[in-house]
């Protein structure tokens, strides 16, 4: 008889100990305030289930409690992430976007410069340079998520509309760039010898997909530019965000007009004039790259500083200054 009494007691003690351990799934702040009470309630429920229904009732209680615990812990974690964690996340995204600058712009420039100086520059860029472009865009996607998360806290959720379009556009650009890169000629260096390889012929990529990718990349720049302009206009309404808004507007304008700088605009008039045309297109691309470089340096630094600030209880009160 005493064995019958001690067995549920051991089960109850074990259950409560396990439940206490599982409480670690909740954010520390929630656990600190309610953890002891939750364990107390669970202990009382266990005692009752064990008394009235024995081990089977305890199993039923566990099944019900586990579902409850997992769902509410997930909900609390998500809520906590939305309200507290961004401080650290913003810092991380700011840093990632700065790395994106290096990967996307500075990296290819440095490699190209190195190849030119060493006299080993071939007729096609090395594979590493081609792959730096989509990787750089991927870093920008992460940066954009951080940027729009922070802006949403200051400008309202409306900013997520251009934010979502921008992020989808960037992802499309990554895929398009990869297809495009895949169908490009690259220089593959092996054992000191550089061979030009046409990746499109080497792979089974369909020419149709290649043309789609090309069109996507043509569409992506104006769309991305317009989303940045829309974001800038939304941010402009908040006095503390004017510096950020100006940066976004300039980046948006240059991105929307990307092809006028490189392919279709004034440089096009010079395109068929040999060297001057090449210089014009290169100058356009450099202007574009410089604006993005400076813009992302400012935004990345802003995100990095934003992460160091305590999150205000109410929106539109604190924002890091760029000046």
């Amino acid at each position, binding site marked *: 008889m005493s064995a019958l009494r001690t067995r549920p007691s051991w089960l109850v003690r074990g259950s409560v100990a396990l439940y206490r351990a599982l409480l670690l799934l909740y954010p520390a702040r929630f656990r600190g305030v309610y953890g002891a*009470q939750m364990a107390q309630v669970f202990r009382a*429920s266990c005692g009752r289930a064990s008394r009235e229904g024995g081990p089977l009732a305890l199993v039923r209680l566990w099944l019900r409690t586990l579902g409850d*615990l997992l*769902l509410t812990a997930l909900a609390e974690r998500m809520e906590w992430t939305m309200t507290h964690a961004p401080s650290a996340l913003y810092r991380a995204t700011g840093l990632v976007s700065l790395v994106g600058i290096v990967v996307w712009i500075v990296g290819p420039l440095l490699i190209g410069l190195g190849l030119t100086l060493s006299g080993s520059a071939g007729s096609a860029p090395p594979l590493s340079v081609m792959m730096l472009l989509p990787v750089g865009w991927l870093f920008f996607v992460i940066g954009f998520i951080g940027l729009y998360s922070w802006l949403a806290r200051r400008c309202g959720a409306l900013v997520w509309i251009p934010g979502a379009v921008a992020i989808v556009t960037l992802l499309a650009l990554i895929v398009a760039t990869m297809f495009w890169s895949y169908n490009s000629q690259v220089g593959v260096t092996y054992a000191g010898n550089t061979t030009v390889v046409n990746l499109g012929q080497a792979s089974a990529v369909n020419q149709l997909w290649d043309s789609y990718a090309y069109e996507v990349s043509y569409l992506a720049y104006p769309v991305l530019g317009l989303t940045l302009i829309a974001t800038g206009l939304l941010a402009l309404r908040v006095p503390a965000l004017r510096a950020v808004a100006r940066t976004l507007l300039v980046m948006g304008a240059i991105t929307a007009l990307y092809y006028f700088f490189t392919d279709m605009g004034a440089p096009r008039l010079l395109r068929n004039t040999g060297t001057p045309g090449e210089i014009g297109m290169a100058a356009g691309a450099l202007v574009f790259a410089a604006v993005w470089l400076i813009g992302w340096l400012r935004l990345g630094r802003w995100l990095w500083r934003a992460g160091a600030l305590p999150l205000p209880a109410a929106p539109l009160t604190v924002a890091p200054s760029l000046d």
Partner: protein
Amino acid sequence: MGDQPGDTAASLTPAMFQILLALADSERHGYSIMREVERASEGAFLLGPGTLYRSIKQMLALGLIEESDERPDPDMDDERRRYYRITGAGRRAASQEALRLARLVSQARDRRLLEGWNGEPGPLPGLGGAQ
């Protein structure tokens, strides 16, 4: 927020409403709330500790309930237990929600969906318990 019971009532979850009902007539601690909800719903609504305290957290933030310092009988009670009581805003929000549900019931009655129901809990006559 608590000054606008209509708005608060709109954000009430079923668990919150059940907790407000449990606290409508007396102050209770967590386990007591859980038991009262189970008793009042005849076992149809079972609150887990996670849902209970997540709801309590949200209701404290909304000003629908507050923590009580008083204990029914300090000698008989575990001092670590925390008691909660309904606030004026909580009572108004619960009333609004009850009114909303009453209107729905009224509409259901008008559409002859409650024929044969005598007001007692349990399945409708003719529908059985397998619904």
